[in-house]
Structures are given as C-alpha cells and as structure tokens.
C-alpha cells in the first residue's frame, strides 16, 4: 500500500478529480496549502510596498492506494493537472504499512477502497 501525495494548481482540482474517477480512484482527501517552488507568482503590492513572501496557493491531495493502483493514480493526476507551465506541482509516493477503516475496523487492502 502507498500513500500518494500530490500538490497541484487549485484550478486543476476538478479535472484531476474527473481523471481519478475514470481510473476508479474514488476516495481522496484534499486540503489547501501554500507552495514555494520555481514558479514566480504575482508580486503583490500593498500601499506601495511589495510583498515578497511568494507563497502561492496550491491544493494537496492525499490518496491511499493499493500497489496496483499507484501507476493509474499517478497517470490520472498528471493527466488532470498538467498544463506544461511552471507551478504544475509534484507527486510524492510514500510507503504505507497499514490502513484501517474506522467504521468497521477492517484492515489492509480491503480497507483502502
């Protein structure tokens, strides 16, 4: 089992979700993050002073998948999120040892989906 973490552009979330459904990956967790990468954001100006924090809005997806789903998941994310411009984001795959469904206390492969 793996935990796939993807950081994407906020406005691509809908497409990514659509691609994931096509790949039959239906369960996911999403949250808002700030990303600092190669992408240069818009330099904000407040009362004449430039704000250079340069943290850009991104969306982070966490998806726990069984091993055979890793590749389709990655493909779906790339398909949905790729624009070809800097700032498209990254996918990280982490090993995951256990997965438990709270409702039933089922564990393992069956609990993931």
């Amino acid at each position, binding site marked *: 089992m793996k935990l796939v973490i993807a950081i994407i552009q906020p*406005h691509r979330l*809908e497409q990514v979700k659509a691609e994931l459904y096509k790949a039959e990956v239906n369960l996911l967790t999403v949250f*808002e993050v*700030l990303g600092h990468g190669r992408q240069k*954001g*818009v*330099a*904000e*100006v*407040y009362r004449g002073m430039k704000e250079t924090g340069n*943290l850009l*809005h991104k969306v982070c997806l966490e998806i726990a998948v069984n091993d055979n789903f890793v590749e389709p998941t990655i493909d779906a994310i790339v398909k949905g999120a790729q624009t070809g411009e800097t700032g498209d984001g990254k996918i990280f795959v982490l090993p995951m040892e256990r997965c438990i469904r709270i409702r039933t206390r089922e564990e393992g492969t069956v609990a993931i989906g």
Partner: protein
Amino acid sequence: MMLVRLALVALVMVGALAPGLLAEQTPAPLAPAVATAAAPPVAEAAPKVDSGDTAWLLASSALVLFMTPGLAFFYGGMVRKKNILSILMQCMILCCLISVQWVLFGYSLAFSPGNWFIGSLDWAGLSGVGLEPFKDYSATVPHQAFMIFQAMFAIITPALIIGAFAERIKFSAFVAFMVLWATFVYDPVAHWVWGAGGMLRDLGSLGGALDFAGGTVVHINAGVAGFVMCLCLGKRRGFNGKTNPPHNLPFVVLGAAMLWFGWFGFNSGSALAANGLAVSAFVVTNTAAAMAGLTWAVLEWLVNGKPTIFGTVTGAVAGLVAITPASGFVSVLPAILIGIGVSVLCFLAVAYLKPKLGYDDSLDAFGVHGIGGMWGALATGLFASKLVNDAGANGLFYGNPTQLLTQAIAVGATILYSGVCTFIIYKVLDAVIGVRATEKDEVIGLDLTQHREGAYTILE
C-alpha cells in the same frame, strides 16, 4: 445577430415615437414632475428650504451611498475567493468615478433643461446648481441636495451590472466601459424619465410613465446591460452550468442587509420630502421586500426541500427592485402582490431560464434586476392609485388601462436603448482594448492579476 436585429427594432421604435414625442414635448415647458410628485403646485413665492425635508434627503443620500458597498459585499460574497477584491474594487471605483463624472457633467446631461432626449451642458461643474431649491425638482430642499441624491443613483446603477460579468472582465476595460455607459446610457435614460422635458415623463395623451425611484432608469437599464454584456463576453472558463458555491455567504447577507437598509433612502427619499408620501413609500418598500424574501424561501422549500438564506436575501433584494418604480404610487396590499410576483418570476428566471438558455449571468444581475425591474414597472401600471399619490395616476386595476401601456412603452424603450447602446460600447471597446481577461488571468483570479493583491492571508 439577434442583437443586431434588436438594434434595428429599437431604431425603428425610437424613430416612430420621436416625432410624436417632439410634438408633444417641445412646447410644454417643464411638465410637472410625475415621478418626483411630492411637490404641490405652490404659489409663486420664493422657495424656502424646509429643514425636515432637507434632513431626510441628506439622510437618504447617505443611505443610498451606503448601498453601493452593500452591493459590493452582496456580490463579493458570491464569487470565488480569488475574485472578491475585483468586485469590491469595481464597486468602489464606481463610487469615485461617477461621483466626479456627475458633478462635472453627468448631472447636467441628465437633469438640466435640454431636449426630450438629453439635457445640456449648462449645469456642467454644477454651475447654476445652487443651495436654493429648484422648483422643478424639489421645491423645499436645496438644489444641490437633489443633485447629490441623484448622484447616488447614478453610482449604483452601473454597479448593478457588475454581477453579470463578474470573474472575467479586464479592469481597464471595465473602467472605460463604465465611463461610456454612464454617459451615453444612464444619463439620457435618467433624463427621459426624470429630467425636465424628458420624453417618458410626458407621453402626451398617454400621460407620463410612472417610475418613482428607478425601475426603468436603474434596474431595467442595468439588468439589460448586464444581459448583453454576459452574452458578449461569453461564459466563465470552466463554467459548466454548475454553480461555484458563494465563498462567503455571510458577506452576501451583510450586503443584502446594507441594501435593504439603504433602500429606504432610495425609495422613501425619492419623495424628496419627509411627508406622507415618503412614509407610504417606506412602508411599501419594507413590505414588498419582506414578502418577496418569504416567497423565495417558500419556493425553495417546495422545490428543493429546504429554504436557504441565499434564496431569502435574493428574494428580498428582488422585492426591493420590483417595488422601486411603484413605491410612490401603491398601497400596502398591492405591495404584497408585487413581492410575491417578483420572487416567482425571478426564481423561474434564475433557476430554470438561465440554465436552460445557458448564458452565464454570473451573479444574476439580469435575473434579479432586469426581470424584477420589468415586473415592477409593469406592476406599477397595474396597481398605481391616485389615492396614494395624487400627482401620480391610476393603474389598470384602478380603472386606467392606458397606464399599463405607458409603462410598457417605458420598459420597451429602456430595454432597447440600453441593450443596443451596451452592445455598441462593448464592440467598440473590444476592438480597441479587449474586454475579457486572458485565460491565465481568469484562472489565477482577477484579484492577483488585475490588482496585485489578495483578499485573505492564509498563515498570518
């Protein structure tokens, strides 16, 4: 294409009306103000300022000014986080822009004695607009008070249009559009309806169109302009008939509350005096808003299973729109009917017509102000009564079917003129500077791309 056809019809219609109007109008020296009917025919004494009337008109002017930020929050809460500042900015820059335009030449174009179509530049820079009452508009308050009260109307009207093209307009184009629209659309239409010698104020044997506080001038005018703009600009990218939830509904409610509050100045202040007529307008305004809010909630309860606060305040605003032209002419029971009617119509427009036709009137500027304004203007022709306002007229249900026709003409003229001119302004601007934001800007959000600022910080 369709629009071009519409334009032709408009030209024909205006052409057909004009000669008759001219004939009727030109000789008549400043017909008695129908819409601003508070002023009784005073004997020719020097006009005296009444402190109570002035107090109410100043308070009303402040209230109406407060409506535009109210609208900013009403609309701003509805858009996505990345676009709220663009809405606030558009509303506030209109406060600035039109305030200045108005004292420089807008008021003069709209209200100085000119011809049936538009005023003159005689009052430019407020020259001649003093602190004495000007009998034709307000016999008991300083002329400048009337001017500044009207300024607030001139501000909020273009602001209403913002709802139609929210989340996708280029700011520079927005500014240019609004300067042109205010000058070439708002000012003439205000002149037609309220200006001394304006063409809809006295339609000869048809009497004058009744528009107490701006059903045609403000709401239909803005609603139709919005409709044309959203057709011209096309849909927001990614728009698929599904709605983006309002990013901050409490702001929507705050805005609606500011609008309701300010609308008392809008309608009741249009009596231009603190008298019985002002009171009556106040009462029917509140009643229609309430009934419309209630109706919308009930409709949602029936149709979607649950009433929403979003729907309720939308209904209330629709009610305020609809009662606007009628507020100085109808009593309380008709106000209830007007409130019910407007929510039914706007609910249908927003929840069925819009998805069906597929235009992207982002925040329902047309659905609420256009439709609601038309209903209100026509309903004035149904329910107006001389018992409420002696200087007004009776409507259909009080035995005068002609009034409904007069109202329909005013509605039609406004729709055509506003629609055609908005289309022309759009086309010119689009050719010259381009009106729509680039895809990239739209996707990042207008706040960052048009204004280099963000509404909320995440961390600190």
